[in-house]
């Protein structure tokens, strides 16, 4: 079977879901005739028309709010943020309105908010963000962030079919760099399950999105140079977190490194560390360590961005310290 890119996998999911269910529709800025800033929705309007592929005004509050209203009425809206950074404008609508709809008003709100996320692309402080922490913190929202093409497709299909709002973060560094074969048939990856990206015995790296590849690179290097067997767990689903998978890898290797591209303070590594502490303290042979971005806005110049973001060499160093502990 032919391989397709991470980006094409997302597009394929959109086509298949719009085909499968007439209630699925897309809305966002420049997603129609233009096909979106990254061309994820290319061809969608030509096939499904202007009424199911809606070019909106520059109004993130309205786009998300309108999706919620349509979702209440039985539609299945898929919102594109032109860059996920602009989800900040809809923070109130998502955390106060959408996230609470079912709980406070028994209103179903099945919708997806998706968009290009993440750095390593010289995008500067407003086109490189990883805003997952603020939403994982919000009860009522689900959050996924795939790293492979197959997961991108399968999780987006699951997100569109979910009865609640799912934030679907797409890593723009992976859009065209990552390829994969699509499993045959109606490929749906359940939300809430992590993926063991690499089996290992000596230590575990828990991560997600683009840093999965940095972790895998580091694992290879550690095997080659240190003879270490490193397990890499790709979380995929950030809310809910797959506690069972986390427990399993911790209890297997007893040493854990958490890696994420988001800034350190208040990033997801804290939450994961707390859970490991509560659930697996006696299995720990070393402190849970983290490799993350530095706590600064993400700068634009390559030398600065590379310094701020976590790199493979950092993971190797941190893993060595853990292994030697």
């Amino acid at each position: 079977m032919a391989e397709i890119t991470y980006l094409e996998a997302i597009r394929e999911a959109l086509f298949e879901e719009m085909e499968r269910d007439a209630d699925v529709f897309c809305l966002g800025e420049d997603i129609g005739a233009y096909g979106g800033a990254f061309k994820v929705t290319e061809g969608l309007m030509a096939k499904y028309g202007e009424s199911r592929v809606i070019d909106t005004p520059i109004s993130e509050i309205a786009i998300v709010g309108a999706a919620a209203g349509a979702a209440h009425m039985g539609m299945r809206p898929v919102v594109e943020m032109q860059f996920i950074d602009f989800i900040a404008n809809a923070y109130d609508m998502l955390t106060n309105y959408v996230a609470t709809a079912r709980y406070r008003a028994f209103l179903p709100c099945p919708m997806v908010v998706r968009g290009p996320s993440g750095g390593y692309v010289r995008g500067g402080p407003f086109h490189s963000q990883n805003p997952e922490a603020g939403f994982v913190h919000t009860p009522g929202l689900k959050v996924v962030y795939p790293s492979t093409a197959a997961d991108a497709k399968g999780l987006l299909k699951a997100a569109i079919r979910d009865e609640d709002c799912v934030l679907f973060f797409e890593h723009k560094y992976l859009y065209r760099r990552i390829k994969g074969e699509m499993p045959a048939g109606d490929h749906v990856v359940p939300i809430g399950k992590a993926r063991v990206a690499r089996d290992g015995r000596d230590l575990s790296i828990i991560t997600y999105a683009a840093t999965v590849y940095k972790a895998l690179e580091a694992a290879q290097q550690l095997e080659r140079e240190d003879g270490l067997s490193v397990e890499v767990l790709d979380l995929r689903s950030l809310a809910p977190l797959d506690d069972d998978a986390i427990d399993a890898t911790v209890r297997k290797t007893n040493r854990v490194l958490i890696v994420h591209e988001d800034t350190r303070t208040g990033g997801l590594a804290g939450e994961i560390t707390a859970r490991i502490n509560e659930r697996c303290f006696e299995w720990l042979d070393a402190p849970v360590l983290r490799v993350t971005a530095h706590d600064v806005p993400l700068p634009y110049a390559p030398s600065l961005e590379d310094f701020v973001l976590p790199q493979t060499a950092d993971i190797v160093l941190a893993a060595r310290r853990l292994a030697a502990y």
Partner: protein
Amino acid sequence: MARTGTVAGGGRGARGSAAAPPAAVPADDVELTQLQRLELYYWMRLTRSLEERLVNLYRQTKVVGGLFRSLGQEADAVGSAYALERSDVLSPLIRNLGSMLVKGATPVEILKQYMAKGDSPTRGRELNIHFGDTARGFIGQISPLGDMVPVMAGVTLSFKMRRDPRVGLVYVGDGATSTGAFHEGINFAAVQRCPLVVVVENNGYAYSTPTRKQTLAAQFIDKAIGYGIAAEQADGNDVIATYAATRRAVDRARRGDGVTLVELITYRRKGHAEHDNQSYVPAGEIDRWERENDPITRYLARLRSEGVTDDALAAIDARVAREIDEATDLAEQSGVPEALDALVGVYADPPSERPLWYRAGQGGVVDQHERPEGWGTYDAAARGAD
């Protein structure tokens, strides 16, 4: 005073409204049967009496949290909602008790909500009249002002997509027009030509802030041209005029002619909530509106002039009193929510959260002394805003 894409001359200014009550203007001629005209009276009376009952319950500390009044605004709420069909969808605000009753909310639901009962429409999860029911066609608001405009843009977008001839109506206060959500939502709906009516209830104040500190616009309908949409303005204390203006907007939406901004000019005679002493209101202003421009008094005079008998009106009053008494008895019988229900229904899947480990097997671990003393009455200011 309809306006479609052009500016209405000489509209009653938004700023003027707080200063002086509008003189009685002849209401637009609309076809309403005698039965319907009496129904309008019933809804207004029910609204006012139900709120009066709530004041009693509030003073008995049976209301949890703040109490919000629509005294003097009953015509605006009832008349506008009455312009909708049963299958249309409405999004009310805190002062739209009347609108909700018209759309099918019942007094017992309202009372249970305010008393935070376990079998209230939100099972004790949300405050006062923050609730909805899509079956009856109303959607519960949330507190952040303006947010319901985008949501109703989406509700009505779905009608358009499905070629379903339903209409949506969303209320915003004069204050809420200053929010980004209002702007983005009405513009989005305009461009998408959603079948939506946006009713600006200009009651002169947003909490303590008079309209002139909220906007420099002479009147709220002046915003319509900037969105390229139609506008209607009406005396919100005249239930028939309110109905007629809203009805034109509803018809326009149903015809596929898009969004209308309806400005209803009224006056908030009570404070923002029951604790607010209205010290910021110029002396005499409230009295004048009460004396000269009470919507129920005005409507009663009109009904009488149209030949409605005192007996017919007294029968409605009696019915209202009876219904509220019955509803109160019923509501008081209900119990408080079960603590564990707090964990149910954040998501469809999983259907419930698990209690934290130190709560396992415990319904409630709260010692009596940990409850804020006298909640329900304690801290008036703590119940500052809706």
